């Protein structure tokens, strides 16, 4: 026993956060995800207060409680806060909290990235909120349709707050997407093959990949609109060859998958809770996995259903209409699989199940009105009315918030070690359920009677009066329910009964971490042989705690976990993680300063902090691999009975992280390519000039240098793979030199081009493409330079071939986008 305690103490010494202010340097997933969820709750309360103000203004006809200008800020900020600062971050937080515990590991695979993501979210959220307190909040609606959001029609800084702030917050979403994907694929407990993975992980994997692909179109759109506002590049101005509809395409290309990004984790909660309370395994696991994957793909093919009234060709409308309706199939498959689980189980009706039923009613209702809206002629009538407002609140509150609260009650014992009580929880449920339906059920009718959304007030006598009064009344009941819910949760932390081990008799590993969990989750890492480890091995928690499972050595002082094969989960390597670090906070602070200086149009300062941010990020990259504070080469590491450390291999999490990041990057590039082709072929004033304003021959020369650099780099990686590190530094210098020549030629091309970037959208788009290439080439060249230094320092060698392998895909990506751009942006218009 004494021995065990000391083992625990040793683990705690390595894994616990620093005390006091040192908490700010924490990278541990449990700490970071709690901060995500707590911050998300604060933003939820703020968003809720905004909603209450909206409903107060609409309670009576012809009210003048709130001015039209303030009202526009309120509804814009309500949508923005709820979507970007509440729904996505809180679900990411929940996923970051649960995923490592569910897959039987100790932390997420890029802990410093978790911390960076959190700080970007926090600072970005604070910047956006600041606009509200300064009275200059964005006021063009949460989807920021241009030209209303453009410099001409929104002269103040409101739109800039939205575009820059949200892009900043999205860093956190995308980094969480990358991190969750790689964690799920590469750090599952040995034996937990994909088909034995808890169903929740499938949902989160789908969500994470959808974030990776779905957010870049919006990031690109925000960059373009900000460039238009700040530098006068006319991407969306029809008089200069741009098109405001391009914004809508890019926005909804993100915006629709976003709805499923929010729904999938919530559905994952439902799929986790229902089998536990039915006391049997989830029925139709394979059906559900199939449904999740289908949903992920289909959700990228229906963005145009938000745009049926912009005058899209009829055939396209029919296609997007059908695709939108087809989403009903994977949704219905899940609902009927849940019903089958309940049907064949022995159901215990606990508090979370009440929320599950509320979810079912509200979400099915929202889904059905969604199918109606997919029908084009019906959409032409109710689009942009309160019918749509009612519909998406049914989908989002029913499909996301109700499961989330059910999940909150379900995992409360895990967070606090105490049980929730049924009494107040029941009251909160009924207040919220009744209040919600009172607010939104009859709002469908308000829309059918013709009330458009986003009107600051309305005349009496149109039949809308009593409906609006009812909605406002209901919203206050709902708000009181949320008040009671928050009170219940807060009180439970103090007065709740102590939770026994695995209080709901669940099957998944997170309940084996101890409640509340230790900083390292598992003292020893279990091997899994079934989909329900805790049902099949009831003493698993004890054997984990007693150190009878894997990877229990800690004397080396590293944070370690197992890396496994993506599909089969066979043990491959030991992944060592960085410990607490100030670099994420410092980098996020510089990025926040960058955001603020861009907002205040202080471009000299912006340049300065951008350099500082870059330096701190490269410093972060430097403290990695075999660096002396991370995992220097030692003799002992070969003597222990574990697989090799990942930084001694060529296929570790870094490579996976790189590839997933490049998928996201590729999505951004494809969005740009889409924008280019769209402006050329679809935009009303779209055309390309007869002669290229860019020197084709110099571009080709630049491309040749790049091709040589990439060729040498790839050959070097290939020989490392077979164990040869001959002339490593000189090969890296060769790559660096050719890369540098490529970069210099590219800069020459940009400087000597006569692009009229403020006169026409075509040249502006070309300019963005060139900047995109420059950005990637610069990173590639600087990193290769740094790798030369690392080879000198001995961080890259025959025994340490890791880093060149990680960076190799980046060079390949840089090469691919270069020639693709050359072909499609420069050559295609000439040969057309």
């Amino acid at each position, binding site marked *: 026993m004494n021995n065990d305690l000391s083992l625990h103490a040793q683990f705690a010494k390595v894994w616990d956060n620093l005390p006091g202010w040192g908490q700010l340097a924490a990278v541990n997933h449990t700490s970071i995800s709690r901060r995500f969820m707590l911050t998300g709750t604060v933003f939820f309360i703020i968003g809720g207060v905004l909603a209450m103000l909206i409903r107060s203004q609409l309670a009576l006809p012809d009210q003048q409680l709130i001015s039209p200008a303030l009202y526009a800020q309120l509804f814009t900020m309500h949508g923005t806060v709820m979507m970007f600062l509440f729904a996505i971050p809180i679900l990411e937080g929940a996923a970051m909290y649960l995923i490592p515990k569910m897959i039987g590991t100790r932390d997420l695979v890029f802990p410093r990235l978790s911390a960076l993501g959190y700080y970007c979210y926090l600072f970005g959220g604070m910047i956006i909120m600041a606009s509200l307190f300064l009275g200059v909040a964005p006021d063009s609606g949460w989807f920021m349709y241009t030209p209303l959001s453009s410099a001409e029609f929104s002269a103040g800084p409101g739109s800039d707050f939205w575009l820059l702030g949200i892009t900043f917050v999205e860093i956190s979403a995308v980094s969480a997407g990358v991190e969750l994907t790689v964690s799920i694929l590469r750090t599952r407990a040995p034996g937990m093959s994909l088909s034995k993975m808890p169903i929740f992980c499938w949902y989160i994997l789908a969500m994470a990949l959808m974030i990776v692909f779905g957010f870049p179109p919006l990031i690109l759109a925000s960059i373009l609109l900000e460039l238009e506002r700040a530098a006068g590049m006319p991407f969306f101005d029809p008089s200069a060859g741009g098109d*405001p509809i391009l914004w809508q395409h890019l926005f909804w290309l993100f915006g629709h998958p976003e709805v499923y990004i929010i729904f999938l984790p919530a559905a994952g909660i439902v799929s986790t809770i229902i089998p536990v309370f039915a006391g049997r395994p989830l029925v139709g696991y394979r059906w559900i996995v199939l449904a999740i994957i289908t949903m992920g793909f289909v959700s990228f093919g229906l963005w145009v259903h938000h745009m049926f009234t912009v*005058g899209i060709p009829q055939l396209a409308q029919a296609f997007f209409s059908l695709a939108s309706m087809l989403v009903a199939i994977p949704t219905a498959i899940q609902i009927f*699989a849940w019903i089958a689980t309940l049907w064949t189980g022995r159901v215990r009706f606990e508090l979370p199940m009440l929320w599950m039923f509320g979810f079912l009613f509200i979400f*099915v209702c929202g889904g059905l009105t969604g199918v109606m809206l997919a029908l084009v002629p019906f959409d032409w009538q109710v689009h942009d009315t309160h019918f749509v407002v009612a519909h998406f609140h049914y989908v989002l509150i029913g499909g996301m918030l109700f499961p989330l609260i059910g999940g909150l009650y379900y995992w409360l014992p895990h967070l606090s070690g105490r049980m929730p009580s049924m009494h107040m929880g029941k009251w909160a449920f009924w207040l919220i359920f009744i209040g919600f339906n009172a607010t939104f059920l009859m709002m469908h009718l308000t829309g059918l*009677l*013709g009330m458009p959304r*986003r009107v600051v007030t309305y005349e009496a006598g*149109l039949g809308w009066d009593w409906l609006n009064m009812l909605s406002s009344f209901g919203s206050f009941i709902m708000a009181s329910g949320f008040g009671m819910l928050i009170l219940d949760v807060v009180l439970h932390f103090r007065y709740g009964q102590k939770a026994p081990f695995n209080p709901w008799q669940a099957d998944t590993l997170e309940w084996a971490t101890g409640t509340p969990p230790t900083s390292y989750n598992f003292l020893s890492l279990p091997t899994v042989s079934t989909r329900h480890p805790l049902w099949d091995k009831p003493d698993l928690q004890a054997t984990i705690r007693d150190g009878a499972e894997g990877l229990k050595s800690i004397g080396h002082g590293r944070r370690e976990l197992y890396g496994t094969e993506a599909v089969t989960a066979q043990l491959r390597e030991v992944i060592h993680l960085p410990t607490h670090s100030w670099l994420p906070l410092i980098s996020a602070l510089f990025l926040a300063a960058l955001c603020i200086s861009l907002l205040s149009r202080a471009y000299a300062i912006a340049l300065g902090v951008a350099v500082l941010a870059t330096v701190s990020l490269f410093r972060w990259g430097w403290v990695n691999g075999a660096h002396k504070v991370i995992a220097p080469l030692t003799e002992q590491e070969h003597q222990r009975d574990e697989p090799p450390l990942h930084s001694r291999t060529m296929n570790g999490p870094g490579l996976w992280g790189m590839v997933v990041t490049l998928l996201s990057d590729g999505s951004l590039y494809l969005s740009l390519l889409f924008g280019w082709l769209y402006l050329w072929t679809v935009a009303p004033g779209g055309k390309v000039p007869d002669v290229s304003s860019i020197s084709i021959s110099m571009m080709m020369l630049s491309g040749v240098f790049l091709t040589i650099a990439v060729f040498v780099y790839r050959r070097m990686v290939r020989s490392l793979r077979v164990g040869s590190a001959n002339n490593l530094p000189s090969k890296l210098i060769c790559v660096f030199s050719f890369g540098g020549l490529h970069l210099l030629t590219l800069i020459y091309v940009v400087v000597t081009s006569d692009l009229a970037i403020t006169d026409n959208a075509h040249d502006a788009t070309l300019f963005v493409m060139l900047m995109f290439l420059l950005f990637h080439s610069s990173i590639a060249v600087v990193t290769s330079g740094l790798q030369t230094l690392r080879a000198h320092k001995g961080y890259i060698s025959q025994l340490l071939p890791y880093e060149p392998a990680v960076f190799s895909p980046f060079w390949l990506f840089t090469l691919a986008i270069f020639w693709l751009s050359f072909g499609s942006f420069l050559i295609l218009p000439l040969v057309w």
Partner: protein
Amino acid sequence: MFKQAVKLASPAVAISLLGCNGHYSILDPAGPNAQKVMWLWWGMFIVASIVLLGVCAVWWYAMKKPHKDYTAKEVRGLTNRLVIVGGIGLPVVCIAALLGFGIPAGHSMLPWPNEQTIKINVHAKQWLWEVSYPAHRIQLQDKVILPAGIPVDIQVTSEDVIHSFWVPRLGGKIDAIPGRTNVLRLQGDKPGVYGGQCAEYCGFAHAKMKFEVTVLPEQEFTQWLAAQQREK
């Protein structure tokens, strides 16, 4: 067929009794397009209500029914039946029916080439509607006059930001987008005055960006056209 129609119409009657046949009500159509959408709505409403209540009832029953032990084979059979019938069959049938009614309805509302139509230009700007009859050189503001029973093509453009032209009792809406001309086919059957409004948020006075559509009997419309031109 008649009985069915009466049954379908009864909610509509109930709604009008509640005093909801408003100036902007989709449920109180005055033209063929709006009428078709109203029927689509009531059809969808009834089917959707049945599906919603049915799914909730099955869920509730599954949760509350007395427990029974099932063999693995029975569970598999039950799952496949539920998932295939409920998860695939139900949505496929509903979607097929919906498209069967919806596609022809939508098709018939499009501005197909038609000699008979009258063309009217509507130019939206913050925050008013400039209406002109190009063939007759008539200009109006926030007012549209239409002949009853004759299809009209409204050619919608915008001066500044995106607006949306919408007369709920006559038919669907179309966006007014800078740089583009969108065409909306409308037809009013019953003479009367109908409310129109901007449906896309377009700035602070969005809520006040309204207009009126007057549908005149064909003869009166011709007289009105003549009178307008005489005034010139």
